[in-house]
């Protein structure tokens, strides 16, 4: 699915919702300069990103940062495909930005169930996270189908690096 971006302005907050696949061909809209205090990117619907998409994303973030240098950048519902890039690629998320919530994929080896769990700042974790304790939280989950232990289907260390 091609990337779909919907922006809504509420007071001094710009909410940007992004869904689909981020590739070199994605049409990430040019943001307009306006008085903004907070940018909230809801990225829960991003399913996939490739190398061309990473470049496109970084350039888009740089543009946003230059348009709104004083605004805070917050990310909600960050999926594992973006967490991986944020942990691996410098400046994938703009410096000073924060991840308010993220999703973790799980897989049940017993019954092949795939599911996701959302973790929210303040509710499920606090900054700075303690590496060991945080990884324990991320890796402890129960299968909703067979009640067996779920295996995390991502790299816990990537979450530690991205969140902190």
């Amino acid at each position, binding site marked *: 699915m091609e990337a779909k971006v919907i922006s809504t302005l509420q007071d001094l907050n710009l909410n940007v919702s992004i869904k689909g696949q981020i590739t070199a061909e994605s049409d990430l809209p040019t943001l307009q300069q306006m008085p903004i205090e907070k940018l909230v990117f809801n990225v829960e619907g991003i399913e*996939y990103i490739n*190398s061309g998409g990473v470049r496109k994303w970084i350039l888009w973030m740089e543009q946003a940062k230059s348009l709104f240098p004083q605004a805070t950048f917050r990310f909600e519902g960050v999926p594992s495909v973006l967490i991986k890039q944020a942990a*691996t*690629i410098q400046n994938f998320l703009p410096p000073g930005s924060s991840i308010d919530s993220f999703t973790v*994929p799980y897989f049940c080896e017993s019954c092949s169930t*795939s599911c996701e769990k959302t973790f929210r700042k303040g509710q499920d974790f606090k900054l700075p996270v303690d590496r060991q304790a945080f990884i324990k939280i991320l890796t402890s989950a129960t299968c909703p189908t067979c009640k067996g232990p779920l295996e995390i289907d*991502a790299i816990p260390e990537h979450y530690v690096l991205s969140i902190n």
Partner: protein
Amino acid sequence: MIPSLEIFELTTADDPSNLNTTAPIVVCDSLGSEYVLSLFSRSKIQHIIQKSNLNHQSEIQISATMLQSPDQFRQFPLSTILGVHNPTSDSEAQLAEVNHQLSHPDEKSLVLDQIEKWVAESNHQRSIANDVRLIADELISNSIFNAPYVDFENSFSGPTRDKNKISIDPAKKPRVFIGRDHDRLIVGCQDFYGTLNVNRVIERIRICYESNPGQVMNFGTGGAGIGSFMVFDSCSSLYIAVEVGVSTTICCALPLKMSAVRRKKIPKNLHISSEESKWKQK
């Protein structure tokens, strides 16, 4: 049976960044990705096999085939990797559970959707489906945007990533294929240009590990320059065979039946078969 080939066994006493051997195959254990790449970049070792990867004996056999019968690997990559004795076109066709020849750049996203759907229907983890899609995506992009347009030095990336500005030569349609056995899934792509400069691509991946992909990224025209890093980082074994001016075959192995964490921890194998690497060796 392993044909007589010199194999160097790397021990913890050896410095992998400064290895002095003429053996084409090095067997080691738990060597980090950066050192694996360095063994090829600096010491021109073409085959680096890790004991704690899936089955290092079969990997030695693959190395032997790539060294002694490179044509077999180029003709029958899936059969060679999956251990078919005396492979044929039939064995290769049977193993290729997914097999597409691209006639037009527009077909890429359709093929990727089909691949992702196929992996998802095979009851593998979501992360496998994503990695397979990513690898196929980057390999196809290389075959249609780079391979026909770059020089042998790969001194510049393909001129554009605009699919409307390029075309695929009907006589040189790239092929993407997937096969598997119980333990691993193989994703591969073959183009019929043979323009990949393996020294350059491996060195580029190595630098990504040494510094950061964000510092290596190309923000100008052409590719982003980190696709090869993303491919290598997503697989447990990388196989590259280049017949200069004729074909480039790249395959990746992904272990099955294990968690994303265990997959990530598996030390990587690297196999290179390239006339160019032999030239540089001399």
